[in-house]
């Protein structure tokens, strides 16, 4: 009897909560629709329906700077160019495909997605919808209605390698890399080319973590390399970089990060960061679409287009420059960056061979 009373009470409370919320929601719903109308009116002046662009990500954005940055650039472009933008995150591969299909069904004008994780789904969906426009960032898909935007990471890696070559005191540097796959050879090969450019005698150690998400193993690999006399390690292991940073801190030596300015985490030991402007390409893609210069096929962004870079050299950083690198080297690196941009230095893309 007591139990039933309790249940009844819970039920009444629950209904109360829902009812109360329902009332509120109608109000805010009206407010929202009012807002929409007015914005549509503003646009109506141009006699053009507002374009809608979706960014469908294969993962949750979470703490991954790669996606967070992309989302940021995407939203900024949406505001500046007056298009409706929507970012959709996915929990798993099946959900990603459903989300992608839904954006097709909901008639978005352009659907942007990213990374090798999206390849399968897009390769299925793009041919099924030949009259739709798609774009994919950070990998190449060969479909007639897809624009692939990739980075010339090897150019930034070259700069990073050059920096390592100039800075190392022991003439030994290391790289901790996520996996031994063709995609990542852009990083290792570029790094090696840069290292040999400034310091032909330097020795390079490369170790593979075997995953994009294993920071514990990344740390072990880094410790191993430091034990072998390395004084600078380029972290190229995604989440594994966090382990590399820990190892650098423990040993009081130096490391570098990827994608965003990682020096902010620990400027004393994380002395450089190889940048990948996912925000810039998301922004540029929206911009091109709005301005009508959008083309299918493949496009790449390098140092020249500010798609990739290196902290202190191509972009300023909030953190102080470490004496390990030094201003003198930064000036040299700036000259090298200019030479890459002008084509005086040719960085070989290992994937193009």
């Amino acid at each position, binding site marked *: 009897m007591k139990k039933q009373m309790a249940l009844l009470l819970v039920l009444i409370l629950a209904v109360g909560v829902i009812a109360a*919320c329902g009332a509120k929601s109608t109000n805010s719903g009206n407010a929202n629709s009012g807002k929409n109308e007015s914005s549509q009116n503003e646009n109506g002046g141009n006699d053009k329906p507002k374009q809608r662009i979706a960014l469908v990500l294969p993962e949750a954005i979470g703490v991954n700077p790669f996606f967070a940055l992309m989302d940021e650039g995407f939203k900024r472009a949406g505001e500046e160019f007056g298009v409706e933008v929507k970012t959709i995150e996915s929990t798993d591969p*099946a959900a990603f*495909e459903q989300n992608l299909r839904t954006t097709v069904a909901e008639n978005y004008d352009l659907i942007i997605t990213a990374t090798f994780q999206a390849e*399968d789904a897009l390769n299925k969906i793009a041919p*099924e919808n030949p009259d739709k426009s798609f774009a994919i960032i950070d990998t190449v898909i060969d479909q007639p209605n897809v624009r692939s935007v990739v980075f010339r990471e090897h150019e930034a890696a070259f700069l990073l390698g050059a920096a390592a070559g100039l800075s190392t005191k022991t003439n030994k540097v290391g790289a901790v890399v996520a996996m031994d796959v063709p*995609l990542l050879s852009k990083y290792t090969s570029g790094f090696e080319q840069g290292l040999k450019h400034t310091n032909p005698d330097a020795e390079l150690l490369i170790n593979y973590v075997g995953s994009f998400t294993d920071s514990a193993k990344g740390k072990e690999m880094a410790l191993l390399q430091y034990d072998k006399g390395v004084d600078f390690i380029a972290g190229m292991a995604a989440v594994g970089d966090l382990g590399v940073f820990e190892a650098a801190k423990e040993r009081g030596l130096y490391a570098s990060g990827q994608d965003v300015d990682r020096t902010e985490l620990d400027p004393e030991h994380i002395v450089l960061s190889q940048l990948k402007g996912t925000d810039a390409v998301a922004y540029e893609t929206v911009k091109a679409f709005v301005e009508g210069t959008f083309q299918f096929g493949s496009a790449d962004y390098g140092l020249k287009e500010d798609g990739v870079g290196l902290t202190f050299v191509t972009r300023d950083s909030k953190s102080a420059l470490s004496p390990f690198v030094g201003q003198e080297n930064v000036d040299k690196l700036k000259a090298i960056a200019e030479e890459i941009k002008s084509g005086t230095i040719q960085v070989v893309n290992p994937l193009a061979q």
Partner: protein
Amino acid sequence: MFSLKNIAQSMLQPLLAIIAGLAVGAIAILIVGGSVGETYMEMWKGAFGSFYFLTNTLARATPIILIGLGVALAFRAGFFNMGSEGQLVLGALAAAVTVIYLPGPGWLRMIAGLLAGITAGGIWSAFAGWLDARFRLNLLIVTLLLNYIATLFTGYMAAYPLKDKTGSAAMAQTVMLDKAAWLPKLFQGMTLHAGFILAVAGTLLLYLFMKHTVKGYEISMLGGNPLFAGYGGVQRGKLMIASMFASGGFAGLAGAVEVLGTQYRFLDGALTSPGYAWSGIMATLLAGSNPLGTALAALLLAALQTGGMGMERNTDVPLEVSSIIQAALILFVSAKLTLSFIKRKKARSKNGSAV
């Protein structure tokens, strides 16, 4: 009249769980500053709003239904099979490998793939049953631990020996299966595939089996009262291995249809990260191991997930909130589970490590 009252009573518990879950979800939505009515509306639309979204939900429900059926069968027999995840991924891998390496026409490889999935899942599950019957290892613990072995093993196979080296080669996955062996899609441009028909057929068959056959009755009896079943001539060990095989077979089939109907390759993490196995177990618990109820509950859970996606697409409420609603549901359902767990424990006899 009597049965109507019965149904109403059996529906009361899940209904209460849902209402309470939604109420907790409403609080979560209010905290993140969304409007509850609009959010639940978008959720509903995302799950059932149009024919397209309905098929999305059914596609999502397919593996959950199949897994739920398997778990329901084991639970009915009194065996806590918590190993669906391992059985699922092994079934998926077996199906993929069969289709990749078996020569012959597409339809034959497809059917062989499905059968391989059932067999792999079934053997893995029966192995756990055998360990219990032979060595008295606690089934619940064994099945749970075998999950790790299975998921890590399949992950290793996809990352090393069977890895697809074409393309950017950055994913742990097998090569794409031959198009001729794919499970057909039911509607052009939608995710729903023929696996759903298998799930529906499985539901009906299991229902009829439990209700109208001698073996089905023996299984229910074994679960209801092992001592009485033994007295009545039911051989526990034999029946246990058989029902564990069937239970794992359903999970293996779920993995096989996902590989042949959705991903078209074995992709490490594609079946574990959506939590299909746990959703399946949850569906079974929601429905008290009734096959028809399990299928309905699986549909409900799938609707919550696709609805969550719709909500995320069209409102500013994050996807996590729909996870909170689901978690609240599990919480309220597990409250019921604990009660029945205690009851079982009291009734536990020497002849059955039923729980």
